[in-house]
């Protein structure tokens, strides 16, 4: 277990049942309890059922409020420390222009985190600015987005080991899972 430190799931924008019926079958087969310790969910899950399902997957679940998460008491943003890393979480509809790196950079400085995880655009991306990292896990269901064309279902698993972070990026492309990797370190 200490070989790879703690595992974190980054997921969000499911929009079930509003824009998607369910998670892709292949994703459901992979996402089973007992594997990850932390979950960061950007928001817009869409229903209590899936919110509960997420809470059953891991012991530490962090969810922020999305623009469609009405009637919930979720926080707007959150910062959690895992090992040497501080991870900030926000849905992203609050940051204008949506998906803009510099605007997100502002927020990152406010929250004082090493990695900022946000969603809303449903566009999978991993970027860096001034030694800090910005991750968008996309939409786990591939739900429609007005901003992004051709959304493919995706989520990310991160493994932290000291100052190093390894990302496993899971996407569903043409019905098959593809796994890509990225690595970066804290500056």
């Amino acid at each position, binding site marked *: 277990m200490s070989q790879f430190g703690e595992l974190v799931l980054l997921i969000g924008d499911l929009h079930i049942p509003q824009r998607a019926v369910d998670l892709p079958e292949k994703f459901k087969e992979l996402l089973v309890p007992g594997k990850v310790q932390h979950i960061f969910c950007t928001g817009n899950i869409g229903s209590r059922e899936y919110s509960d399902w997420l809470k059953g997957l891991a012991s530490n679940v962090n969810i922020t409020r999305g623009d469609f998460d009405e009637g919930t008491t979720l926080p707007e943003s959150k910062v959690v420390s895992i090992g040497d890393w501080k991870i900030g979480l926000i849905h992203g509809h609050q940051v204008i222009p949506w998906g803009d790196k510099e605007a997100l950079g502002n927020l990152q400085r406010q929250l004082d985190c090493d990695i900022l995880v946000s969603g809303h655009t449903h566009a999978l991306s991993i970027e860096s600015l001034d030694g800090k990292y910005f991750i968008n896990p996309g939409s786990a269901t591939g739900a429609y987005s007005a901003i992004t064309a051709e959304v493919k279902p995706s989520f990310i698993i991160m493994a932290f080991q000291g100052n190093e972070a390894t990302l496993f990026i899971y996407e569903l492309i043409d019905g098959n899972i593809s796994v*890509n990797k990225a690595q970066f370190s804290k500056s």
Partner: protein
Amino acid sequence: MAAWYFNVSLKEIKETVLQGDIKNRFVIWKILLGVLQGSPSDWVSNNLKLREEYNHMKSTLTPSINLKQEGTINNPLSTSTDSPWYTHFKYQEVRRVIRIDVDRTYQKYQIFQDEHNKNLLENILFVWSATHPIGYNQGLNEICAVIMYAVLNDSETEDGLTSWEYIEADCYWIFSKIMELSVEELFVHDAELTKTGPNTLDESACYDRSILRETPEMVRRSHYIFHRILSATDPTLYTHIQKSKYDPQLFFVRWLRCLLSREFTLSQTLLVWDKMFACHNINNRELELLNYICAAMLSADRENLLQTPCADLLEALMNPLVINDISLVLNQAISYFEEQVDKKNSFLNKWSGESGILTNSLKMLYKMVSSKTEYLRKKPKKKEVTLESMLLYVSQSKQMIEEQIKIQCLDRYKIKKTIKKMKYLLEFSGSQEKLN
């Protein structure tokens, strides 16, 4: 100065153990079980090799996860059996189940509350479970805990055969050896039992080798102890229990699977195991004394059991009398066991001298004949059948067979040879012309 066990024969060690409590129990167990093989001068080096082997096994069970490798299979969620992540999570689950039992094992004793010792116990059970198809089962933790208790109550030896640094590896090999003595088979799960053979036996089936071959170990053993041992050592009690028609597995399962460790205090268990290992012969496939002790334990409670009516009998059987003085039970079991061994050895010695061909067949023959005798003697009209009369009959058949072999050989080859050579000739006469 070499420890006492280096300078005595195996027979003397066994006799010492049978007479009472012993020093350096941990090393003695290794010797009696055959974990330390070869001659005494090899023991220390063999022991070191075993420790290395254990460490090697342990390291192969740690899947190497390299975060830098390409991700198609090497990702945390991979369900591919080739993925080290998959193996990692699989092992993690096994350890989780083991740990639940470890945390509950012998918590009354301080040494088992200690975190370090719990980790040792978990590791040993994990390594064994991961390398044996049957996996982890409840009860294995009990057996392993007794072994650990034995070493932790022992003292380190100068020769290094007992050493605190290597408790894990040493305990593992004793545990593994005990499991090989048909204990592993006792844990075959009930669901599998019903698929691969009878799940209970009637009395006559206990004498039928063709049925016994197909029978799961737990079934076979319970019925053997009940129908064959108890019926001979305590016929009154046997008849009484038999009327209730309870399956003997019900009351023997915990005794057999935990090797009696749940029926006695830990210190008593150590003494019981001492005797079991001392009576163990390297060629045996199981710890035979265990069977006799089980029967003796039922007999020890006979006053109570004989008075219990059928309906309450099962409960009484499963909760036997607490035995404070185990020496009576042990001595009874040992004396009956030794009686059986003597009978068998005298037969084998008498017949195997001359020809040498039928040695393994001789053992089989003895088994068949003695079980047939036992079976017949239970029939009302055949009580006069004795082992001697059966053996006489069979030996006459053996002599007849030998006579026939001699005649055939003389006819064919006009030569006189030992029975062995003659048999060989007759079997391979097609491929060879002559034999010198």
